[in-house]
């Protein structure tokens, strides 16, 4: 156990250094923050210029912050989670560093643990930055961060399996696009009611809706049961998928 923790610690430290030194990874981690800045600039003035009264402006502002924080969660989890797991592992496979690790008596579980911790850490840091850029109320911060972590579970687990299944970074590109697209579906729920219903059922639809409820102050209510159930179902499905496929894909070629 101690040896395993020591190896995970060493891997995590190495992965953190590599995350900073890898321009592609760094850019992906900065992208959700960039989008938040853009949202802030573009959407921030909408209510001011729309000639709304104070009540209408407050309501519109609340809708905007719900959308912005929900979007931040989906973007950080979708972009950062999938990129770190799928590309990170695919690069290690392509450059044979994963095999070198295996030959240094490092298990696939230890590599998976390190990559998962790195993804959760990066998602949390990104979420935190996005929260303050979006102008979220500090009273929502706890719920927002917790939803970020819970929502990461299915995306990170599926990405981990896909990363291990990749042969190289080209395959990683092919595998990561669907993960990213599915993660971003809730952002388009505003466009259409039918789309909103479908979006609510996607892996991040539940936490997107729950974030809106946290802003509305209805997170602890019966309304939250449905998105909670959706989120729990996706977590359970991803855990089953991970358990079924991990051993099969964990061997490097």
């Amino acid at each position: 156990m101690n040896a395993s923790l020591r190896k995970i610690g060493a891997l995590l430290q190495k992965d953190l250094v590599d995350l900073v030194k890898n321009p592609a990874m760094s850019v992906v981690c900065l992208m959700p923050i960039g989008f938040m800045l853009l949202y802030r600039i573009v959407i921030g003035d909408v209510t001011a210029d729309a000639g709304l009264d104070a009540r209408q402006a407050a309501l519109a502002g609340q809708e905007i912050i719900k959308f912005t924080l929900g979007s931040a969660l989906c973007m950080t989890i979708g972009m950062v989670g999938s990129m770190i797991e799928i590309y990170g592992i695919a690069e290690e496979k392509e450059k044979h560093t994963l095999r070198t690790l295996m030959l240094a008596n490092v298990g696939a579980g230890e590599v998976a643990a390190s990559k998962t911790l790195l993804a959760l850490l990066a998602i949390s840091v990104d979420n935190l930055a996005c929260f303050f850029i979006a102008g979220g109320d500090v009273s929502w911060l706890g719920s927002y961060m917790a939803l970020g972590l819970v929502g990461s579970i299915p995306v990170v687990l599926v990405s981990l399996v896909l990363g291990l299944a990749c042969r190289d970074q080209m395959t990683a590109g092919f595998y990561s696009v669907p993960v990213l697209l599915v993660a971003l579906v809730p952002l388009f729920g505003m466009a259409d009611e039918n789309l909103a219903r479908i979006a609510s059922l996607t892996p991040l639809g539940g936490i997107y809706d729950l974030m809106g409820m946290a802003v509305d102050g209805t997170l602890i209510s019966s309304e939250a049961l449905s998105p909670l159930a959706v989120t729990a179902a996706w977590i359970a499905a991803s855990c089953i998928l991970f358990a079924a496929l991990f051993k099969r894909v964990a061997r490097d070629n």
Partner: protein
Amino acid sequence: MPSTILSMEGVTLSFGTKRVLDGLTFSVSRGECFGFLGPSGAGKTTTIKLLTRQLVRDAGRIMLFGRPIENASDADYDRIGILSDTSALYDRMSIEENLRFYARLRGRGAGDIGRLLERMNLAHDRKTLVKNCSKGMRQRAALLAALIHSPELLFLDEPTSGLDPAARTEVHRMLAELRRAGTTIFLTTHDMTEATGVCDRVAILNDGAIVACDRPKSLTLKFARNRLVIETRTRGVVETTKDAAAAELVGDLLTAGECLSIHSDEPNLEEVFLELTGREF
């Protein structure tokens, strides 16, 4: 502690219908440098993969540290260092950062890193990013990463492949030091000169089967021809046999001060391989 650290007995392995290893039997003693020789495709890397849990045999028995390989624990594998044909370091990290990472991974301090870098002539390049290193530097750095935890048993898969003569000499010097320190080395190579200079014993592999296994010198003597070649001052090159009949001729030439050189006509390992298999490397 058992003197045999590693052994294979009747090990076979097939990929589909192709039999790649056919009844391999050999053993490696503690502190020995054992060379596994053969041309490309002979089964050298496959053998290392079996010994390092990357492949599973079809039949036969493999013993590691005195117990069946199936029962070898993670602690046993912590006593092993492996440099494979695909070993690679992280290219956005420096040589030193990579070695520090592997030291931490292996639960070792970073204290030995400076000494190891000096020994491999990499001390001046310690801060160089691996992506900016030459192939020789990468190979030597990868060897250091495999050695960072002072393994008892070291698997080296063609460690000098593609290296320039100076880098090969560095690696050979390092191997000699490791042997003196008691490290057991299992080395695959297709370089016969390297095997002759570095290994205590060699096994020659051809088409997945061992065709000879002995000390390099013993193998070459076994296939030595019954011929002496004498270079003389005035009579050119004189050839004779090694038996008693030649004694008088050699004595006469020596007495007359005619001898410039006398060579017994021993084959090198490459010629032994050719003799054994009818194939060239």
